């Protein structure tokens, strides 16, 4: 069941990657980056369950924070640029 979860997360990452490459606007690409970060963080958590050791779990906290800060910065950039 853990393997199936990892496969689903990989499929989600492929979907987000498609939107990152194709996305017509910068907001679409930022949506894709957000989704990729969440998929990666979820994969770290699932791997922590698989191995039984939570050595990488602080990375999940850092990734969540960095994802929010990057989203906020890019959103302000898009507003200021006006396109």
């Amino acid at each position: 069941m853990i393997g199936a979860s990892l496969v689903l997360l990989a499929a989600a990452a492929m979907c987000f990657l498609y939107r990152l490459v194709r996305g017509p606007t910068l907001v679409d690409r930022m949506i894709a980056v957000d989704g990729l970060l969440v998929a990666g963080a979820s994969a770290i958590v699932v791997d922590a369950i698989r191995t039984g050791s939570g050595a990488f779990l602080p990375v999940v906290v850092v990734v969540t924070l960095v994802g929010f800060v990057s989203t906020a910065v890019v959103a302000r950039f898009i507003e200021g640029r006006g396109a």
Partner: protein
Amino acid sequence: MVAELLVLAGALLTCLAGIGVVRFDDVFARLHALSKATTLGFLLVLLGAAIALSDPNDITSLVLAAALQLLTSPVGTGLLGRAAYRAEGYRPRVDTVDQLADADLD
């Protein structure tokens, strides 16, 4: 078993968010698909891990990550949506209400 089922449900929700981001035809629809499904999916995965792992250190990290995601995801989505509204423009359909049309944007 319960933990693995929760993790599977969370991964399924994240996968559905990915499908929505690919299939929907509007920036706002994609933002909608991403924010809701991803938040719930991530929280389910964290909950499953909190049940499966037993070290208090790990549980603290998981709770902190869940709180951060729950606090920052709506704010980030709102910021992105407002940026998209102001930069890309918005073409309203017949059955939608544009509440930002006469709002006082700074």
